[in-house]
């Protein structure tokens, strides 16, 4: 266990009483509660953390926040491994394990660093210019090599053991960022009683206040912070959400956020998710996300030990870690000097300060006070060192070059406002020439930007903006704000800056985009080859396309392109950002919806009964339906289904049909309405009778079918297919509300109210007799085919009985209130037991409907017309209805359109397959000879051979002809005979029995 050699003796917002052991690349270390993985690694003197993407250069820790491009690790192990995790935002926990990535065999010795040697050829876009010959080598040789080398960390791939959830929140004001601006805003709005949500990605609130030594109201800023947090906690309508990143801004004030509920723990505690994805609906929002510091492009600027100056202050002041023994500061403005001051205050050594600006007596005096050499008007040309920085090359104002040794180079080049969310709705940032940065340009409605995120970079401005915008938001959402308290004063600060985008003249690569290994030379090459629009620059060089989305690189790249093309930065382009602000775990946005919970499952009221009967279930849209009921000793599903079919045709069977859509239609115009939505007539349907109906889409193709019964003069019950129930309801509502609101139609779905079962077979009536109350006459005369009437069962339970048949047998459908669905099945089984009643599933149902030539889902595929399906005679010519005109279009009434017929194998033992195409015998298997396809097949135990339904050119006119059923994807190619689609009982004698 190490001794944390770089940890300061005191100070920092860490709990030194709470030691946390962790490991990195197998070595054990110790940190404290309050550390990030990065701060703990630095405390332990670990500098080399990763390898770069293309050249496998050693990389360390650049930043102290979400912009980190270099220090990416694989966090945790096994199924919980999280690749590409920024060490700078990982909250340290006891037992944490992390490993470096993109190196082999080890971080210190990485064989692929050989890429550095051939790097002259590996410039931007090199792959577009080569690997073209021979063509087949791309997939076989070149690409596998590239794929293996590319990528960074390794995902686990195996099932994520943690769970996730979603949540929805609503507020008057959403504050994004818990620094001084955000806290002031939340306080100002919260005091008015407005509902405020404040989210901060950090685990501790305070933003830059945690990293700086500042004063508010004449006292250390930490006191103001503590008092503010305490007051916010006391406000009941204010919700503070740390560890929560607002990642995206969507339409109408909806913000996406991810709350890391348990990422700071070894594992989520029982009953808690790992992360929670939030949809936050905010009437107003204030973006107070601060700013991100900018590096400078110079040779070797990626050496471990080169760090952003503000990050150095974070480590010193917040984490009590001095990341180097001997520091050189390279700064383009006043802000960097804070780093020198804070290092000195912490007892560290500042060897030199290189300030790009001309000499200034005050700065000279300060440098002297800090004991640092000052290179005014100078620049760092290069940084030396392999796995760790060991010195810099400095050019002074006179052009003289000197070498200086150091192990930490703090770089300060001003800050870029964290304006990402303002560009999520295509908003373009605007260039501020005074500040030399992009500031929010067009800002989406409802959003305001405060403090550094707006380019108002001083603490005083942050506090002022927050208070003002927070109180404005409260007023705008209907809350009266108390007289605003004066914004407390802060210690003075200056922000003089003269940014340096690139220092030329050094030896070695100078990186613009660290993570994607894009150098200044790559940008120059893009300019030379005409990839000058900013999007071409990004896409050609991959600048800004890495996991940090260019947070530290986009502006430098633009600046170098501007310099190359003789334009200004804003003429060259703008930086825009796409959501998410930082990468978001897929699991967090999926929440509960995975595995069986991906989508709801619908179960029929008879489901448990079917389960008890040993049913195998099948997905039918959202429903699970009993597919077949295997019995012990049955060899395969076909044996079972054959038994079920035979039992129905010989005796009686029962099959749940509760899943069919049932729509109750009432109103004076109900019959007229049906006339308009179905192709056939309804006005003459007598009360107490059912009729088969077919409805089209307005484009003339079939939408759905089903039986509809007339329960009263103005009362119908429509049934739809299981799959289309919702779609049909929506269609009918459209027809009523949008097309014909003048009709008196009152519709409601009653699908859930009724359990419905088909009882089919010659003994169906006898079975029903034992279930339907005695006063109802079920004789063929009293209750003929297509009768549909209320009955009672079980001594007065209201029920509906329909004499309809999908199987072609004497059949009924009995519907009872769903609470009685289970009982109905038991009563039927009991009544039918002496008759050999057999439960059957959707497979047997399918066999029998194919035997009868009834169309179903495979035929109603959205590409068929009523005419195609042999149902053209149903079409009424006396009325207008949905789809009438379009069904009559030229191409839909052509004689050679494939039409519905049956098929049987010429060799009776041969199996048919749905999806086979029909080819004329003797014709080559080619598209121009394609005559149609098989829609449905089944084995008929009645006929003792396979049978099929399908669509073939010429249709019924070709009955008796033979064709090939060509099924190359299953190696099938057999001869079939075209036949009538009705295989069993074509006269319908069974039906009417």
């Amino acid at each position, binding site marked *: 266990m190490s001794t944390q050699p770089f940890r300061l003796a005191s100070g920092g917002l860490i709990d030194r009483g709470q030691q946390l052991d962790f490991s990195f690349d197998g070595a054990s270390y110790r940190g404290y509660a309050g550390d990030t993985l990065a701060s703990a690694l630095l405390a332990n003197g670990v500098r080399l953390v990763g390898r770069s993407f293309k050249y496998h250069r050693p990389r360390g820790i650049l930043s102290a926040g979400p912009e980190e491009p270099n220090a990416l690790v694989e966090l945790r192990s096994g199924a919980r491994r999280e690749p590409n995790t920024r060490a700078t935002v990982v909250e340290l926990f006891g037992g944490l394990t992390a490993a470096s990535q993109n190196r082999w065999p080890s971080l210190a010795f990485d064989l692929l660093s050989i890429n550095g040697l051939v790097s002259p050829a590996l410039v931007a876009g090199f792959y577009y210019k080569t690997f073209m010959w021979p063509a087949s080598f791309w997939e076989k040789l070149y690409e596998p090599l590239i794929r293996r080398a590319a990528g960074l960390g390794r995902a686990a791939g195996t099932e994520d053991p943690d769970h996730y959830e979603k949540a929805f929140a609503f507020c008057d004001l959403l504050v994004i960022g818990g620094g001084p601006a955000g806290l002031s805003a939340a306080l100002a709005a919260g005091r008015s009683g407005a509902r405020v949500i404040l989210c901060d990605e950090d685990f501790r609130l305070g933003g830059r206040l945690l990293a700086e030594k500042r004063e508010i109201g004449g006292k250390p800023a930490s006191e103001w912070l503590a008092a503010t947090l305490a007051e916010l906690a006391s406000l009941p309508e204010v919700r503070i959400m740390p560890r929560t990143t607002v990642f995206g801004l969507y339409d109408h004030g909806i913000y996406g956020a991810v709350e890391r509920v348990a990422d700071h723990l070894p594992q989520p505690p029982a009953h808690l998710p790992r992360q929670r994805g939030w949809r936050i609906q905010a009437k107003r929002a204030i973006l107070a996300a601060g700013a991100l510091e900018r590096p400078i492009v110079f040779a070797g600027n990626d050496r471990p030990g080169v760090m952003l100056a503000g990050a150095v202050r974070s480590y010193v002041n917040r984490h009590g870690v001095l990341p180097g023994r001997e520091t050189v500061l390279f700064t383009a403005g006043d802000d960097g000097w804070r780093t020198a001051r804070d290092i000195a205050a912490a007892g560290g050594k500042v060897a030199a300060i290189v300030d790009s600006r001309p000499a200034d007596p005050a700065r000279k005096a300060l440098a002297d006070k800090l004991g640092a050499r000052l290179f005014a008007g100078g620049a760092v040309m290069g940084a030396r060192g392999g796995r760790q920085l060991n010195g810099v090359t400095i050019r002074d104002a006179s052009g003289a070059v000197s070498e200086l040794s150091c192990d930490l180079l703090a770089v300060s080049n001003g800050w870029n406002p964290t304006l990402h969310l303002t560009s999520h709705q295509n908003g373009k940032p605007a260039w501020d020439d005074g500040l030399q940065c992009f500031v929010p340009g067009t800002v989406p409605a409802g959003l305001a930007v405060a403090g550094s995120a707006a380019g108002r970079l001083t603490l005083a401005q942050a506090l002022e903006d927050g208070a003002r915008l927070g109180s404005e938001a409260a007023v705008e959402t209907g809350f009266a704000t108390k007289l605003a308290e004066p914004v407390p004063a802060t210690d003075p600060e200056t922000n003089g800056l003269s940014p340096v985008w690139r220092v030329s003249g050094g030896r070695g690569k100078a990186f613009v985009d660290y993570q994607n290994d894009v150098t200044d030379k790559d940008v120059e090459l893009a300019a030379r080859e005409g990839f000058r629009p900013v999007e071409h620059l990004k896409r050609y060089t991959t600048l800004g396309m890495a996991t940090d989305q260019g947070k530290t690189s986009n502006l430098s790249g633009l600046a170098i392109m501007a310099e190359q093309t003789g334009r200004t930065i804003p003429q060259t382009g703008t930086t825009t950002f796409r959501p998410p602000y930082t990468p978001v775990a897929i699991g967090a946005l999926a929440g509960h919806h995975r595995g069986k919970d991906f989508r709801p499952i619908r179960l029929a009221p008879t489901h448990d009964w079917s389960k008890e009967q040993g049913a195998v279930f099948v997905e039918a849209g959202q429903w699970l339906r009993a597919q077949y009921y295997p019995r012990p000793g049955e060899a395969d599903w076909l044996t079972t289904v054959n038994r079920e079919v035979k039992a129905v045709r010989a005796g009686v069977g029962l099959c749940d049909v509760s899943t069919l859509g049932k729509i109750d239609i009432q109103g004076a115009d109900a019959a007229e309405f049906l006339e308009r939505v179905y192709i056939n007539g309804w006005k003459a349907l007598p009360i107490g009778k059912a009729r088969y109906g077919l409805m089209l889409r307005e*484009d003339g193709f079939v939408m759905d079918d089903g039986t509809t019964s007339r329960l009263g003069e103005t009362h119908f019950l429509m049934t739809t297919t299981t799959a289309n129930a*919702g779609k049909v309801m929506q269609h009918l*509502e459209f027809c009523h*509300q*949008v097309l014909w*609101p003048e009709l008196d139609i009152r519709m409601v779905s009653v699908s859930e109210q009724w359990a419905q079962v088909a009882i089919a077979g010659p003994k169906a009536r006898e079975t029903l007799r034992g279930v339907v109350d005695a006063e109802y006459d079920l004789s063929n005369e009293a209750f003929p085919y297509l009768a549909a009437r209320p009955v009672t069962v079980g001594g007065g339970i209201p029920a509906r009985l329909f004499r309809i048949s999908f199987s072609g047998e004497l059949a009924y459908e009995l519907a009872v209130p769903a609470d009685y669905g289970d009982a109905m099945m038991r009563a039927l089984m009991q009544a039918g037991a002496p008759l050999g009643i057999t439960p059957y599933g959707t497979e047997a149902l399918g066999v029998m409907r194919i035997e009868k030539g009834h169309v179903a889902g495979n035929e109603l595929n959205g590409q068929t017309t009523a005419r195609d399906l042999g149902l053209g005679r149903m079409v009424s010519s006396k009325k207008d209805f949905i789809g009438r005109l379009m069904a009559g279009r030229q191409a839909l009434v052509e004689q050679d359109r494939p039409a519905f017929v049956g098929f049987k194998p010429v060799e009776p033992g041969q199996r048919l397959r749905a999806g086979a195409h029909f080819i004329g015998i003797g014709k080559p298997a080619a598209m121009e000879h394609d005559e149609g396809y098989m829609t449905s097949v089944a084995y008929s135990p009645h006929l003792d051979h396979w049978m099929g339904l399908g669509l073939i050119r010429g249709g019924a006119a070709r009955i008796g002809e033979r064709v090939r059923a060509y099924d190359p994807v299953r190696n099938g190619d057999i001869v079939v005979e075209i036949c009538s689609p009705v295989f069993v009982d074509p006269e319908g004698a069974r039906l009417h029995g």
Partner: protein
Amino acid sequence: MRITCPHCGARDAQEFSYLGAADLQRPEGMAASEAAMADYVYQRDNPAGVHRELWYHGAGCHAWLVVTRDTRSHAITAVEVAKARKAGAAA
């Protein structure tokens, strides 16, 4: 997006399903021409800008709504109940 259903109040757009242009007139009756119907079924203005369009509040009150929305910004400026357009007094 949020759509303010005149019946139910402001709801997430996820509760609704979208159909398309709202102001198309179905050619009604036996006298309607095939060409007019093809135009109704297939041709669209598809403006980049203000668009009146039909949404169905399927997860809510089942009302068809006419939403006026800008297809460039997604900003919604009006929501009406479709049925009220013709039914008027009857509803």
